[in-house]
């Protein structure tokens, strides 16, 4: 904890330092939040449906990708 505070104070001297510290801190926060998300999911009955959830996730991803590609196709010719 103290190391973190010292790094932050030192980092304040340089803007680049602040950005690096923020990036590192946000990484740790994301790790913790995803651990908590998994923890809550694992403790609830939702975990039993993980396979069907995975299929839904893949389907939504495929439709999102197709949707976004179709939406930008008219711009392809303009950029050439």
């Amino acid at each position: 904890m103290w190391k973190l505070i010292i790094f932050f104070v030192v980092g304040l001297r340089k803007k680049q330092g602040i950005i690096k510290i923020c990036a590192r801190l946000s990484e740790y926060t994301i790790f913790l939040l995803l651990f908590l998300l998994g923890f809550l999911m694992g403790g609830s009955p939702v975990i039993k449906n993980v396979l069907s959830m995975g299929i839904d996730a893949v389907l939504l991803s495929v439709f999102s990708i197709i949707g976004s590609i179709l939406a930008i196709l008219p711009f392809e010719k303009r950029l050439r």
Partner: protein
Amino acid sequence: MRFSLILLVFFVLGSVVGYFGLISIPSVYTSSFEDYLLYVLLFLVGISVGSDTKAIQGLFKVNLVIILIPIMVAIGSIGGAGFGSLFVRIPDLRECMAVGAGFGYYSLSSVIIGKLRGEAIGGIALMSNIFREVTTLLLAPVMCRYIARLAPIASGGATSMDTTLGVIYRYSGKDYAVIAVINGAILSILVPILVPLILS
């Protein structure tokens, strides 16, 4: 890719700990702790986006067509996920659209969706957006060859400014790298705004 794997490890580790009840924490504490962590994360993301002067300056220099690309990607992605709701077992259209509004930014979108609508849809958002990134990394050459050179940028979404930028640069070309960075920057800003907006 390494970062994605680390994230998955944390998520799976949390699931295992929760499933076997290795740690017992009352849900009241985890919920409020999660709230504060999310505020901290949004603040840090705000600093990172705001301090990226190159991306911000780039926004003002480019022409309208390039600005329109991320807007169209956002509309297409949300619309596509909305259409996809017809084929999945998620009854709420807005939840499907919110998953699509993650634009591949799985770490942030899954946490926001999980917080607002429960861990089940949060888990789906995480898997869906990781799959989006992996698909872009694997299929970028095919997309460029058979669809369009802009296709990997659209598919990568918010990741087109970082993790998928390498494959975009390689297969779409150097000229498209600038578009990819601007596309990723705008979509990254839009995720914490659009996801809660869709679910509100």
